[in-house]
Each structure stands twice: as C-alpha cells, then as structure tokens.
C-alpha cells in the first residue's frame, strides 16, 4: 500500500510554474528516490508535499488527503522533512536541536530513549551534544539534520540531497545509516539525490524527473539498467 500518493501536483513560485502535474507514490516501508537534473523541480516536489509552497493537485498520506494543509500539521501526522541546506538551528546546541525534532510528538514515548537512539545511530553527535550546532562541520550538520528528523518518530522521512557538499566517506556513512533506520524503524523514505549511483543502490523504487514532470519510473534496478539513466546519471 502506498503511504504517500501524489497525483497531478502543480506548484509555482511567483509567476513561474515549477511542477506541471506530477504523480508518484512512496510505498510503505520502502525507500523511493527521485532523480533529475539541476532545476528539474525535485526540491520543490518535497516542499510541495510538506505544504511549504502553494500547490494544486492531490496529495494523500496514509489514506488522508493532505494537500493544502499547513506544514506544522503535516509534521504532526508523521512526515519529517530534512531540507536542502539542512536547516539546523545554528545558535542552539546539538541536543536542543534534537529536542526540537521531537517537539511535535510531545507525549508519545520517552524523549530520553529517542535521544539515546539518535546518539547510537550518530555517535559523533553524542560527543558534541553541548556544542552549538553552528560549530559542527558540514557532515556532522547533515547527520544532525537526519537525527532531528528521526526524533519525530516519523512514518515518512523526506531527505533532500543529503550528500550535497559531503565527502564520499561521509556520504556513504549517512546512506548506510538511512538504510539501517529504514530497516530497524520501518520508516519510509523519499529521497531526492544528485548522487544517482548511491541513491539507486539504496532505493527500491525510483522516479526520473524532468522539468516538473515524471518521465520515468520503475524499480531501482530497472532504472539502473536503463540507457538514458545510465548515460546521464551513472556515467557508464
């Protein structure tokens, strides 16, 4: 069953239309990735799902229509969005950042347990928990951003370019953790990524996006074998 289902989604910034009737789905428990060239509208798609831009079309989450609802309400339904550029609170400590991640689910489950879990996935954060987030390196900030998303105990995790600006080793580390999380916590993941090789290896389902439309979809391995994708995204 699809956890997230998007049909005919349109969105615009000012006078420029960015999404032109987009449809896709994220399976429950799976990892879905959206590939696409620079400027294809991938980031906008995630923002549209979260109610951060004005949209038209249908978005269903967990069987409920959610299009047009406020971002903060969607978060309460269990959608955690780790935005491009990470969106850390640079003037708050690492632990405060994590506590904020759990803000919308206040009451459900123990905060301490979740902090423990986050620190287990990302041991480096435990070392830095009293430090201001602004003093972390890029990789650590990305980990913090993912960890903050996890604190929500989300059903769906939206990851926007987690590899951006990160060293290969760190990218692999983060992807490894995302997979672990997906398996251990049964969190579904929607991943937008330039690093197609990594993304396709991680995901079980993939979409290819061009100028605001989905032009191809299939299982990750299917796309990996596809000529166009190979040439443009994988380079062999």
């Amino acid at each position, binding site marked *: 069953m699809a956890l997230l289902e998007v049909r005919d989604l349109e969105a615009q910034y000012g006078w420029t239309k960015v999404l032109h009737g987009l449809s896709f789905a994220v399976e429950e428990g799976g990892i879905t990735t959206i590939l696409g060239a620079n400027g294809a509208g991938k980031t906008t798609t995630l923002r549209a799902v*979260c109610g*951060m831009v004005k949209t038209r079309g249908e978005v269903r989450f967990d069987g409920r229509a959610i299009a047009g609802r*406020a*971002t*903060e309400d969607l*978060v*309460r339904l269990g959608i*955690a*969005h780790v*935005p491009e550029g990470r*969106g*850390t*609170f*640079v*003037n*708050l400590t690492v632990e*405060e950042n994590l*506590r*904020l*991640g759990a*803000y*919308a*689910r*206040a009451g459900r489950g123990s905060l301490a347990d979740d902090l423990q879990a986050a620190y287990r996935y990302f041991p480096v954060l435990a070392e830095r928990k009293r430090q*201001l987030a*602004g003093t972390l390196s890029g990789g650590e900030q990305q980990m913090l951003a993912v960890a*903050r998303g996890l604190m*929500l105990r989300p059903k769906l995790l939206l990851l926007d370019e987690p590899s951006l600006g990160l060293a290969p080793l760190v990218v692999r580390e983060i992807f490894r953790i995302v997979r672990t999380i997906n398996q251990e916590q049964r969190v579904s993941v929607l991943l937008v990524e330039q690093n197609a090789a990594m993304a396709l290896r991680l995901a079980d389902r993939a979409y290819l996006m061009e100028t605001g439309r989905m032009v191809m979809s299939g299982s990750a391995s299917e796309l990996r074998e596809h000529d166009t994708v190979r040439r443009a995204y994988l380079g062999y």
Partner: protein
Amino acid sequence: MDILIQQVVSGLATGGIYGSVALALVMIYEATDIVNFAQGQMAVVSTYIAWSLLNAGAPYWAAFLATLAISFVGGLLLERIVIRPVEGAPVLTVVIVCIGLLVILNSVLGWIYSYIQKPFPSPFPDRPIRIGNVYFGAHDVGALAITVLVLVALYAFFRFTTLGLAMRAAAQNPASSRLCGIRVGWMLAIGWGLASLIGAVAGMMVAPIVTLDPNMMAGILIYAFASATLGGFTSPGGAVLGGLIVGVIENLVGTYVHFIGTELKLTVALAVILIVLLVRPSGLFGRAAVHRV
C-alpha cells in the same frame, strides 16, 4: 566616600529601572527577532490598567497579578491582530508598524486618562533604609529584586522548558521550526505576550518613582535601549547588568567629571556605550552572529 557610595546606590536604583525595561526589549527580540519600539508604550498601557484596577479598589497584589494576566493576553492579541498581517514583510516594515502602534497607544492613553501624571503606589514600605550615611530607597531595592526574580524565571523558562526552546527556535529559523511542527505564529504571539508581561512588571515598578503619565517610558526607553545594547541584545542577564552599569556610570560621570557635569551626562553615557560597541560589536554579553562563508 559616602557620596560615592550614595551615587553608586542611586545609580543602581535608576539602573534597575533601565534594566527591567531593557529586559522586556531583549525578551521580545529573542522571541520574535524584532526590536519593538512600542514596548515602552505597551508597558505604560499595562500600568494604566493596574492604576485603574487599584483605583477601583483592588488590593495591590491582586491588581498586580491581574495586570500581568491582562498584559500577557493583550500582548498576544496585539501580535495576532496588528503584527500578523506584516509577518514575513521586511524588518523595517514591521518596525514602522511598531512605531505606528506606539503613537496610537500614546495618543489613546492621553485621550482616555489625560496627560496629567498620576501617583502610583509602591508595594514596598515608604521609609528609606539607612545604612551608615547611605540611604536605600525601599522601593528601589524591592524593584531590583523583582527584576532579578523575573530574570531568573525567564532564564529557567527559556532554558528548561520545551515551549521556551520552541520559541527560541521559531525566532531564529522559522522555516525549520515549521518543519519541527512548531506553530511559529503562535510562538511569536506568546513572545509578545511574555514581553508585554515583563513590560507590565517594569511599568509597575517604574511608575512609583517617576509617576504615571502616557509619556512615562519615553525617556526610560532610550536608556533601556542603551542598556540592552551595552549588555548585548541577545543576553537577558546582560540587559539587566547593562542597565545597572549605565545607571552607575551616568551618575559617576555627572558627579565627578566636572567639565561635563550633568549637562552632557546622557551624551557621555552614550559615548561609553559606543566605545564598548566598538570593542565588542555585540555588546558585553551578547552572542556574536554566526557567519559562514
């Protein structure tokens, strides 16, 4: 020596006033990221509310608490009604709206209550405390204590409560806060409510000293700005300390630097602040903004 101590003491008393208003300013800056020029005027409104309650025969502390409650709700509503339409507009637009609010409140108060100053009671004894040759106004001491109390309460609130944390987050990074499920608009409104509440405390502590009139806070607000700047706009404790420092410096300069005397005392106080800022551009206790390239 006595006069030095007496001047320091009276400087601390005046500085306590500056500090309490500065605290409200810093508070709203922390919680909403704007400097509210109407802050002082809101405090005056609160004080008039207290005055009306007292005049209607309410006992002091009942009126005090009622005023705090009314001020909190009032600040909250002001944000929701007046500020909300310009949420997301350029900072200066919000500043102008605050100035508009300032003149409206001032004018309406004058209209309702007239500009005649009104005596306002102090909850503390009238008789000064005398130690040696130095006199402490009982009200001054009490007011300072209450300011410190508010400060501690605030610190605890922002440091240890989830709501306090969420408010700080909302002010710093609204977009990310939304992604954490924080209702940013309401956080701002609560910030206004709290600042208004602190302003009410400041107003009720100031009014017995300077008497109540619609322009009561005009002069004080200037010093409060100076204090908050000196202490650092991001540090509530710094604001209070900044107030005390400004109060004392001003008195000592006025007393001991004769060619300046009292005529240029404000100018000197401002110059001191300017110098401090040049050495520490974010004030004594302020946090430097994080810059990343």
